């Protein structure tokens, strides 16, 4: 029997004023999976997560969290890292973690003990007794992340957890997410960095302009696009372009185009017959980037990647 999903939502709608920030979004997160929500800035990711957690109420639609329609009633089994990071600056790191645990029903003593262990594992052992205001932004963010999982929640929701972390800490965070999944938790996170989603997610949803454009596994996402061919002719002649599919573009001394519906054989035969020859040919699975371009448009994806580049270099 299929286990009940950790989280499901149907037709979520949220208006801000007259603007529909989230427009009939459906999401289904299987138990024990890692689920990504991808989308450019302003897509409605944060708003969707807040609705799922019951921080704000949807204007329409229905959601179910850990088997209940009242997400607040299972708050102690949920961990949440908000997009806007914030801790009390005067608190010591381990106190801050224990405090967040206490808010979720964990007793202080256990919270402090776990905080020490987790900080040590995250390479922040030396900062356990430092006040938050003395930590760097990335360190503080890591402390907050630990605080949101210290009570060993069944469902972990992270809003843009990678932003603001250096590559080393991004790697640590990936390890933590995988470890939590192995512990049995379900992890849901939003991002606009495709690499993380591609590496971590069992399933993902792509949201743009408040609408869900795609839902499924990374492989399924790729399968929505045909394979890409890269062809290098031996004899590049004037008539060649006309023989290739309409979407072919010059690329790297050759041409790139989607594999035609009927397969490559007919095309290759034609190219050989016309004497252009084959100097090189490779077939590639489409990248998540290409899927994105197809789903949400070139411009959107470029904006998104510009954002993530800015993050990475920041």
């Amino acid at each position: 029997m299929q286990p009940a999903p950790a989280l499901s939502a149907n037709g979520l709608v949220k208006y801000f004023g007259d603007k529909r920030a989230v427009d009939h979004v459906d999401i289904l997160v299987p138990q024990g999976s890692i689920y990504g929500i991808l989308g450019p800035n302003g897509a409605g990711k944060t708003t969707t997560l807040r609705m799922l957690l019951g921080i704000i109420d949807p204007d329409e639609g229905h959601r179910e969290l850990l088997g209940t329609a009242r997400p607040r009633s299972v708050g102690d089994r949920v961990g949440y890292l908000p997009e806007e990071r914030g801790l009390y600056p005067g608190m010591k790191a381990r106190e801050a973690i224990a405090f967040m645990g206490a808010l979720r029903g964990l007793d202080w003593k256990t919270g402090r003990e776990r905080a020490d262990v987790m900080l040590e594992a995250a390479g922040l052992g030396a900062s356990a007794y430092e006040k938050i205001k003395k930590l760097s932004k990335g360190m503080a963010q890591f402390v907050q992340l630990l605080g949101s999982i210290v009570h060993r929640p069944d469902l972990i929701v992270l809003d843009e957890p990678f932003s603001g972390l250096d590559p080393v800490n991004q790697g640590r965070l990936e390890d933590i997410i995988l470890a939590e999944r192995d512990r049995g938790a379900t992890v849901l996170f939003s991002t606009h960095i495709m690499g993380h989603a591609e590496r971590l997610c069992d399933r993902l949803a792509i949201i743009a302009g408040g609408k869900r454009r795609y839902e499924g596994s990374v492989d399924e996402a790729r399968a929505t696009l045909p394979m890409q061919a890269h062809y290098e002719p031996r004899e590049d002649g004037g008539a060649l372009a006309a023989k290739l599919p309409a979407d072919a573009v010059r690329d790297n001394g050759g041409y790139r185009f989607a594999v035609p519906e009927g397969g490559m054989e007919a095309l290759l035969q034609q190219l050989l017959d016309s004497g252009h020859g084959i100097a090189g040919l490779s077939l590639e699975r489409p990248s998540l980037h290409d899927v994105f371009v197809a789903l949400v448009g070139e411009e959107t994806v470029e904006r998104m990647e510009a954002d993530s580049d800015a993050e990475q270099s920041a």
Partner: protein
Amino acid sequence: MMRFLRKAAVIARRDFLATVFTPAFLMFLLAPLFMLAFATVGGTGARMIADSGDESRTIVVIADAPLAAQLDAEDSRMRALFPEPVAPPPIEIRTPGRDPGAQARALIENESIEIVAVLFGGVDDPHILFAPDGERSANYLGALFENTVEAERAASFGGAIAVPERETIQRSAATISGRQATGFTALFVLFLLTLLLAGQTVSVLAEEKGNKVIEILAAAVPLETVFFGKLFGLFGVALLFVSFWGGIIAFGLSLMPDTGAALAALDPAIGFGPFLALAIVYFGMGYLLLGAVFLAVGAQATSMREIQMLSLPITFFQMAMFGFASAAAAAPGSALATAAELFPFSSPFAMAARGATDPALWPHAAAIAWQILWVSITIAIGARLFRKGVLKSGPSFFRSIGKYLRCGRGSKSA
């Protein structure tokens, strides 16, 4: 419920510790010292204010017309020796009845006028009866009598002078003015503390909004719990403040002589112990009620500037509640008093004053339940508004008001 309280305690604990363990808290705690310093500098003024309480007091001479006239003349002469602020209370002359002793006793025990000392018995058998707080007045009466009689004896050459026999009596009941004074003092102290302390809650959520912790709190626990916890955290700070200064004042009073007698004169109708307990409870209720309102209103503010702007209406609100409650205290039993006791936000002040003049206990139980209900209602409404406005589940509170006003004006001008 347990979960609610536990989590509220987590938030209250954080707020309490974060407030108390700061250098600023020491300033806050010791702030009344500045006031005391100024009071000492202005000490004379303070004494004048204290003495002016004597104006409501009277001393009485029960004597036949000739002696009364002599005493009156001597009083005018002696009174001229005192500077105005420290002059003895005015003298009233009464004609003796059948039993002047009983008459004198009745005068002192009379609840409606505050007579602190009575001279009776004529030239031959003079007596002075005085209340515990009337010793100075009794001394004055003695001197007055001796001077008067001496002058007369000197005129008629000879005879010994009878010295008045002094006797002090305990009042069996507090005077009306004493009781009203208790009421007003309680009211005043409550008001002052609530005014000083409850106003702090207006900015309490500003911190979380500024450092974005609010979303952690709002995601982890219901907003009602957040509000409740924050309110109690600050209430703890207020209690610390009050018990610190309450302890110092109690210690100071215990060092002073005559405290017992002074307290007896102020004996509130329901008894001193219950009154003190009620005053503490009503202080708490007043704090929680006003604090909940300020917290709810302050939570709607989106900037420090808005919070600063809010402090004025808040002070006015407190003044209005105080005015309402003190009007009620001045007219016990009136419709106004009942209204102030029923209206939730003036109720703690009005009920504290009522404790001074009305011995019944049950209205207090009812009032406390009523006030607790209103604390919960205020918190619930505040949390709902906060969810709608600040967490953007709907349009912001002030913005909707602004929109409403603009639209109202627009339609009028159209």
